Each structure stands twice: as structure tokens, then as C-alpha cells.
């Protein structure tokens, strides 16, 4: 491992479900301290990649390296102290209340004879406050709305207090204001020094919040870099087969993707001039 290798990267990573290869010999580096956002069309392998980064999916070949070592070679708890993930659709357990679920996020930090510490207490209370689920503490998780549940799962991942946090479509199920609350929260965590890797569908959210974009198609990385450099009309059309205009977001001075009108797209013009 050379000194400028990032904490999390892949090495000729091949991922497959049965015989269907999703990602083929991929090398990708997650810059330390970055807010990396992975975008790409449906079924491009972005969630699959994220799952393998969190060692939920075992590689067919190649490896995910965490701090220079294959992630599979660590004891499970060691990884869980460094890297956490908000999955896309976790199993919703019956009959468990919010506070208890969030508290289980402390599993990796606990031992048989040290099941609860003041740090655990503070981490759980803090995570619930940040995601605004403190008032839901005594509610059953399976009785919550989709949006509330999403925030509870996020609280559980935050309680884990890992320096690297992966999020698989964290804004799903959320209304507009809650989408931005979650993204703002990720930005806060990033500013506090954590490395954030999120899969997002909305390109404009991605451009606003990412310090680094990874654009994927068909299991390969087509572009990686700062949104202002990466997000061009050309690239969007190549990746999503969709003509559009890339403009300046007046609020944030970041690229803003505006899809071409239906008429223009129907006219078949592959380029849309401003």
C-alpha cells in the first residue's frame, strides 16, 4: 500500500449474481474525506458496488481494500467500527421500538461484559436528535411511515459512528424538505471529517452536495471528479441517452441538469444548444 492510497478502494473488482456479471474488473478509489456521490441509470451496478464496498456482497474476483487490506480479511466487528451503511430496503422487524433499534446500532462497540456505556448512551441520543426521531422513541418501527422509517434506519447507521458512511439512495421515501434535511445532514457529517459515499438518483442533488462524482454505466465508471468538471451535456446524454442542458444552479453555483423538452427529444435532436 503506497502512502497516497485512500482508505477505501477496489482492485479489479468483479461482482456477479449467479452467472450475470454486473461489475467487471473495476478499479475505483474513494477519496478520503470526500462526499462522493455515485450516479448512473437503473441497473448500472451502483447499488451492487456499494454493497460490495460494505462487504455485504462478496466479490466474484478482485477485492475491496479497506486501509490497504482486503475487507474480507478483517474480523466483522473491526469493519463495522470503520464503515457503516444505510441499506436500500432493510428487513423491517416486527414489534421493536425505535429507540431499541437505534441502540442496536452500537453492537460493534459493545462487548459481552460491556453492553452499555455512557458513549453508547450519547451516540444513540445524538443520532436520534440529528435525524429528528427522538419523539418517535417509543413507537414501533413497523408502524411508522416510509419517511419516518428511513430516518430511523439512518439514525441506526449514525449511532454506529463510523468514519466512513455509505448510503444507498438515502432520499427515497422522503418528501422534498426531508430529502434536503438528509442531504444537509450528510454534508454536516462530511464537514465533521467523515467520508460519505452515497448513491443518488437526482443529478441535481448529486451536483449540489458531492465533492466528487462517480458516473457509472453498465458496471463501468465513465467519469470521476468534481461535479463542475464531470457533469457535461455530452456525458449525461451518453449515460442516460437523454438530451438535456447543463446550466448554472443560481442558488449554489453548481451544475444543474435540465432535461430537454418532450418536443425536442421527439424531434430526435441529439444535441440541444443553449
Amino acid at each position, binding site marked *: 500500500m503506497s502512502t497516497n492510497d485512500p482508505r477505501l478502494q477496489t482492485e479489479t473488482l468483479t461482482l456477479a449474481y449467479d452467472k450475470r456479471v454486473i461489475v467487471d474488473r473495476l478499479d475505483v478509489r474513494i477519496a478520503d474525506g470526500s462526499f462522493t456521490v455515485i450516479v448512473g441509470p437503473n441497473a448500472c451496478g451502483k447499488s451492487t458496488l456499494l454493497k460490495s464496498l460494505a462487504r455485504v456482497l462478496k466479490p466474484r474476483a478482485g477485492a475491496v481494500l479497506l486501509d490497504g487490506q482486503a475487507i474480507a480479511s478483517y474480523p466483522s466487528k473491526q469493519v463495522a467500527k470503520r464503515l457503516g451503511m444505510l441499506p436500500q430496503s432493510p428487513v423491517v*422487524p416486527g414489534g421493536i421500538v425505535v429507540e431499541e433499534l437505534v441502540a442496536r446500532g452500537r453492537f460493534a462497540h459493545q462487548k459481552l461484559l460491556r453492553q452499555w456505556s455512557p458513549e453508547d448512551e450519547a451516540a444513540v441520543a445524538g443520532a436520534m436528535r440529528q435525524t429528528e426521531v427522538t419523539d418517535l*422513541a*417509543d413507537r414501533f418501527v413497523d408502524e411508522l411511515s416510509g419517511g419516518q422509517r428511513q430516518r430511523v434506519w439512518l439514525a441506526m447507521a449514525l449511532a454506529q459512528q463510523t468514519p466512513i458512511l455509505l448510503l444507498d439512495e438515502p432520499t427515497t421515501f422522503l418528501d422534498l424538505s426531508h430529502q434536503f434535511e438528509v442531504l444537509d445532514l450528510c454534508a454536516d457529517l462530511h464537514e465533521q471529517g467523515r467520508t460519505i459515499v452515497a448513491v443518488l438518483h437526482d443529478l441535481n442533488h448529486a451536483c449540489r452536495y458531492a465533492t466528487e462524482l462517480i458516473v457509472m454505466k453498465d458496471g463501468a465508471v465513465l467519469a470521476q471528479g468534481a461535479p463542475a468538471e464531470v457533469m457535461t451535456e455530452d456525458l449525461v446524454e451518453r449515460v442516460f441517452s437523454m438530451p438535456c442542458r447543463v446550466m448554472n444552479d443560481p442558488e449554489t453555483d453548481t451544475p444543474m441538469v435540465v432535461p430537454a423538452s418532450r418536443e425536442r427529444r421527439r424531434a430526435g435532436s441529439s444535441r440541444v444548444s443553449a
Partner: protein
Amino acid sequence: MTAPGLHLTRVGGARRIVIGSRSGRLSLRMPFRSALAGTGLLLVSLGVSLVSLTSGDFPVPVADVLKSLIGQGDAGTDFIVQELRLPRVLITLLVGAAFGASGTIFQGLTRNPLGSPDFVGLTVGAATGALVVILLLGGGGFGVAIGAIAGCLATAVAIYLLAFRRGVQPFRLVLMGIGVSALLEAANSYLIYRAQLDEAVAAQVWLIGSTNGRGWTEVTLVGVAVVVLLPIVLYHGRHLDMLALGDETATLHGVPVERSRAVLALSGVGLAAAATAAAGPIAFVALAAGPLAGRLTRSPHAGILPGALMGAALLSVSDWLAQHAWPGGDIPVGNVTAALGGIYLTWLLVHERRRVA
């Protein structure tokens, strides 16, 4: 700083009890209700056991029982208490705890209240092993126990292999277990049909499940299983809680999923095998202990320890009923648990159906 000793904490609204040292290096945490329920169940088990030691054809006062237990009784009392009644009381406690723990484990692993060892064929397989020894090999006593353990382990392996298809889906495991269970029931009936009348009666009595007429051999058998396996499964108890959240979440939070599941399943099989070997396939204790303990502790699924204590309490009470509540006395405890379990199962199915609807 954590205060030394024992204190209650409140996060959100749920009260928890935390037992901790001043340095904070040692701290055990559990929901307040679990601690309360566990203590209650332990007291019930021990209380009923004490009553069982006093009652019978020769009533012995509580004071004399206690004297005998600490080695200061007279010879006659010692014989009644230690030789006649104590093995049965201990077997009841240990078998109940083993079934309760095993049931809670499998219900947790399969995420299904019907996924207990007496439902997915483990105890039926143990019975097949025992019947083979009783009826085909003409064995008794310890041989029957060995047969039961071998039958239980073989059944577990068979169900696992049959249910395996790129990993094991919990629901598939339960269905396969119910299928295998039906098949083994048929085999058991056939074995009994083929047998001589007196052997058939002996085998049938064994099948009901009883703690009567067992001695220190059986106490040792199930005692060793509980002493060795219970600490192992209690160590993995929190893993079971995490596995209930799904394999993905459990992995993300640092549970070695495959290994924990294997350890829990093997220990669960061992507990069920030893309990069945010692007392026969006593019905419904494994099925009912976990969910009843969960109801008492108001948690999604009971911890293994509350499940084990509930099992011990259920079987102690059932055994007392079997001995004393029936005119003409002493019926096999399996009859009592089967009757109570039938009522429980009906209630469970009605309740589950309502919840789904």
C-alpha cells in the same frame, strides 16, 4: 460517569436496567421488564420445584426438605428427597430450560414462531432414533438416549441439506422441517405397528414424554448439555437479536453472520437432542416458551435466557399438575404439555391471523 451498582436509565421512554462497575468496564444492560420477568420465572420454577419435593405419597415438610438438600437430613428423608424426588425435579428444570432455549433460538433464526424444534421435526427425529433402539435393537436406558441424540442430529443434517439452495432461506427451512416431521411420524407409527405389544406400549409411553422414572444418568446427560451449551448460546444471544434484523443489517453492524448462525443452530440442536434423550419428545414447551416470554417481557422476541427460564417454569408447573392434579395420579407430563400446548397453538394461530388481516 457510571454510578457503581445498579441503576435504571431512561432513553426515550423505555426503562432499562444497567448493572455496572464504577470504572464502566463492566456493564450489563437489559430492559427492566426482562429483568423483572426473568426473576419472576426463576422464582416460580424454584418454588414449584420445592413444592414438588415436599409433596407425594410421603409428605415432607419444607424445613426437612431444605435440611436434606444441605446434607443435614435423616436417612429416611434423604432417600425420599434425594433419591426419589430430586432427580425428577432437576430433570424437569433442565429439560424445560433446554427446550425453552432451543425453541427461542430456532424461532429467532427462522424468524417464525412455528420454527421451533418440536415443529420442524427435530424431536420427532429424536423419537425415531429412540424407537429404533427400543424396538429394533432391544435397548433401553442409556442406549435409548444415544439413539435419540443420533436421530435428532441426523434429522437436523437432513433438513439442512434438503432446504439448502444457494444458502438457506428461513421459511424454506421451516416448511422442509414440517415435511420431514410428517415423514418421520409415519416411520414412528410403522415401527410401533410392527412391534410386540409390550414393546409397543413401552415405546408409546416414551413418545408421550415423561420425567417419571428417570434417574441421575439422565440428569447428568441433560445437565452437561445445559452447562456446556447454555453459556455458548447466551454469549451469542445479542447476535440473535441482530440476525432478526436481516442478514444484511447484521453484517453491516459487525455480526459474523454465517458463524454465529452455525454456532446457534448447532447448540440449539444439541439442547433439543439432550432434552429429548432425557425425557422424551415432550410437546410444545419449545414452541411456547419463547413467544410467552416475549409477551411477558414485551419485546419482539424473547431473549434466550427468558426463554429458557420460561421453559423451566412451564415444565415445572406441568409436571406438578401431571403428578398431583389428576385423580389417580402421575400421568406423563407430555400429556399435560400437549393439552396446554394445543390451547396455546389455537390461540396463537387466531392471534397471528388477526394481526395479518
